């Protein structure tokens, strides 16, 4: 489409410009007429864990719409053979699947889980906030900056196009010129930094701020999963940082780490998967934690095999670092390497199996109450087991020569990522919604959401196993009639639209809940852990006085004994909440600087870099907590 003053622009981008402007005007008008600006002001300057967690989830939902629309475009283009849907062929299709993958992993799954951790973990531990509230706010705004940079690319007709794995040498400037893949690098680099800070914050919170009596062996399993996940992040994400940095140098400054006489494209694959494989466990372990808590709550029983559950999480975390080359079986690493990585990969099935059986036996002899969060957890078990067994099939190195990079793999990882992470995030959102907003989501609409989503999901991805076995490679924008893939793909497309439709029930549910229902009490689900002892939503300093814990699920047993939880006399230092605009400013500076690097405008890099450095110096010399310290000393 020819746009005056700008030139030739694909029509999908023009449409998105128009929609964005209209939507922007509408939101501005709505916010002003409803006097919502003070509320926005309060949220962007907050360091409170609940508010930050809520913002994480809200923004993740926005990106979910973006990634979901990409998925719809992909499925529409693939619905029938030799299709030409709108503009989504060739390079444009490559952009769509690249952004779909990257957005869903880094800007949907990660923030959904980190948001839930923010909301639930301090409350489960009896802590008043995360250990470093200011750092938490920085983490969040770095994630926002990364998300903005990555999503901006599309609006400037420069969406990344080398796949979410961004394999060299395709991703080097020799084969993909232009700013496109620079957006990928800087988007991930900056949000990745935020993730590392969150990991540090979670580890310190869990180690230092547990309520008196809550030994590590009495922690709820979601907190345990968060601890192990954070350790994985702390080890894996720096590897991503380094590999992105090397790729930056290859693209911007003409080094040749991944290409040429001394470089090797396989280095990128090693680095990427040394990060990338732990990353999938980073995404699944918190979901495991959520399911453990929910299944135990709604079976009215302690989780079965608590000790083996914890050991299993740790083992999965450990083995997760030893399996990266199973993504590279076809590279030709040699028989020994392939055999070893095949066996370590199979081994992961053992601790995962232990967890599945423990969940099943938690339900046995319990009283299973089927609420929406429980429904999502129940949907998870068969779905994830299907994803797990195809995982073992993929681990058979020689057989993987057939599955590799085919739709079989696509089906497998959607079974684990959606069946595990996304179902887990939905379960967690329905479960902890009272702790976010003080209201309960509607159960009936929640169940509609679940059934449409799960049926749509299986319709979409079950046929893809067979498409892969029939020789359909991934990342292709069309296929022929002779390929014999039409029916499989057509069913898949129908399923995808069903999944999309199920999300409308979420929107309806949110509207209905906030319009027509009242606040609920502290413990709407008859819960077992400490988050259900405080108000819904909790205040910024919820535990006052701090409760004392003497067993797993202490709150549940105190309810059974009809005695309140004992509280501790001990005075403990608490994180100090502050109001600050600094993290938002830092995010702005980093976006500005990144654009300088993406388009290689040196003046912008210099200004952005100096501002960022100035910010660090300023930050090192100020401490917003001083006022509180002084007041404490005086009193």
């Amino acid at each position, binding site marked *: 489409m020819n746009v005056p003053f700008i030139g030739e622009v694909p029509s999908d981008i023009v449409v998105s410009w128009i929609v964005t402007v209209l939507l922007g005007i509408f939101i501005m008008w709505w916010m002003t007429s409803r006097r919502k600006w003070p509320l926005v002001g309060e949220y962007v300057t907050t360091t409170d864990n609940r508010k930050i967690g809520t913002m994480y989830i809200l923004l993740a939902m926005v990106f979910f719409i973006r990634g979901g629309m990409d998925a719809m475009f992909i499925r529409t283009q693939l619905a029938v053979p030799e299709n030409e849907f709108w503009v989504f062929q060739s390079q444009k299709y490559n952009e769509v699947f690249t952004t779909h993958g990257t957005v869903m992993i880094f800007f949907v799954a990660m923030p959904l889980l980190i948001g839930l951790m923010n909301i639930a973990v301090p409350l489960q531990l009896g802590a008043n906030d995360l250990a470093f509230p200011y750092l938490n706010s920085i983490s969040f705004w770095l994630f926002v900056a990364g998300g903005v940079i990555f999503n901006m690319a599309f609006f400037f007709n420069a969406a990344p196009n080398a796949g979410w794995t961004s*394999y060299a040498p395709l991703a080097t400037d020799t084969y993909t010129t232009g700013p496109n893949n620079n957006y990928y690098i800087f988007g991930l680099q900056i949000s990745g930094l935020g993730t590392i800070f969150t990991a540090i914050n979670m580890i310190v919170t869990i180690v230092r701020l547990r309520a008196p009596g809550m030994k590590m062996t009495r922690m709820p399993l979601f907190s345990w999963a968060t601890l192990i996940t954070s350790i994985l992040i702390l080890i894996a994400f720096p590897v991503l940082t380094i590999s992105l940095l090397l790729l930056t140098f290859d693209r911007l400054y003409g080094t040749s780490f991944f290409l040429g006489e001394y470089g090797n494209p396989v280095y990128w694959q090693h680095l990427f998967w040394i990060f990338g494989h732990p990353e999938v466990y980073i995404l699944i372990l918190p979901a495991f934690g959520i399911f453990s808590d929910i299944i135990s709550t709604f079976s009215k029983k302690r989780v079965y095999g608590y000790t*083996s559950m914890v050991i299993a999480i740790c083992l999965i975390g450990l083995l997760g670092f030893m399996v990266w080359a199973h993504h590279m079986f076809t590279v030709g690493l040699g028989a020994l390497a392939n055999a070893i990585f095949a066996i370590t990969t199979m081994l992961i099935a053992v601790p995962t199996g232990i967890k599945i059986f423990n969940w099943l036996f938690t339900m046995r002899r319990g009283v299973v109450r089927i609420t929406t969060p429980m429904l999502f957890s129940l949907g998870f078990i068969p779905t994830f087991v299907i994803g797990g067994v195809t995982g073992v099939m993929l681990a058979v190195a020689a*057989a993987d020569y057939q599955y590799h990079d085919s739709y079989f793999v696509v089906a497998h990882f959607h079974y684990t990522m959606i069946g595990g992470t996304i179902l887990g995030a939905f379960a967690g959102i329905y479960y902890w919604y009272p702790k976010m907003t003080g209201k309960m989501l509607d159960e009936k609409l929640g169940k509609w959401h679940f059934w449409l989503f799960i049926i749509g999901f299986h319709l979409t991805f079950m046929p893809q196993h067979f498409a892969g076995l029939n020789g359909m490679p991934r990342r292709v924008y069309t296929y022929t009639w002779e390929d014999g893939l039409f029916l499989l793909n057509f069913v898949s497309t129908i399923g995808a639209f069903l999944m999309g439709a199920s999300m409308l029930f979420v929107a309806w549910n949110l509207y209905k809940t906030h319009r027509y229902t009242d606040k609920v009490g502290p413990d709407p689900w008859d819960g077992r852990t400490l988050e259900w002892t405080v108000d819904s939503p909790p205040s910024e300093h919820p535990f006052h006085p701090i409760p004392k814990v003497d067993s797993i699920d202490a709150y549940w047993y105190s309810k059974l004994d009809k005695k309140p939880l004992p509280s501790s006399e001990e005075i403990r230092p608490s994180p100090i909440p502050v109001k600050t605009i600094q993290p938002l400013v830092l995010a702005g500076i980093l976006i500005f600087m990144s654009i300088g690097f993406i388009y290689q405008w040196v003046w912008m890099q210099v200004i952005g870099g100096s501002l960022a450095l100035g910010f660090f110096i300023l930050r090192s010399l100020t401490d917003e907590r001083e006022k509180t310290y002084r007041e404490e000393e005086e009193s």
Partner: protein
Amino acid sequence: MRKIVMVLGIIFLSGCQMRVLDPKSDTAETLTDLIYLSFGLMMLVLIVVFILFFRFLSKFRETPETRGTIPANEKESKWLEITWTVLPFILLAILAVPTVKATYELTAKVSGNVEETQGDVMVVNVEAQQYNWKFVYENGKESFDELILPVDQEVQFRLTSNDVIHSFWVPNLSGKIDVLPGEETRLSFKPGETGVYQGKCAEFCGAKHTLMRFETKVVEQSAFDDWLKKE
């Protein structure tokens, strides 16, 4: 659930036509056997989990009678926990042995370890580039996007790329092998039946990755000799 079973059923009836499960060479046959073995073992696991899941769900679901009851605390049974730790190990061991065996057999053929080719092996050099395939035969004959092979003749491919990473895949005849710039990878198999098979690039390689296909024609030895001599 019923839908899944239905879809599974329909698709399995047509399963024999699926290219990966319809092997036409010795290598592809090994892979298909492995796929069936792992699928069978995993089905066992799947069935056990599904039975337990639906049984527990129907038996312990809250009813009006059990609404107010609080189930008793139970101690974990050591034997149950040992069972579901040890049994998977045994299943995986059953799977791991043929996996390692096949991986060694096929990879020895695939990777560059074997410097000299023994016996009666035909060598085809493969050059991949965005977005086509060039096949060079022993007598220097070149062919683009069309691979002609004689039936029942062991053939070894030596593959290299002129630009980005590609991946060579003929689902009926063998698994994939990546084609890397600046390196030589190898793959060999012996086609067992004449016919025309699809070949594809399986590693995302750029704008026209989708169109980077080739046709593999397995023909009788005499027809192959005639073709090879033709200019």
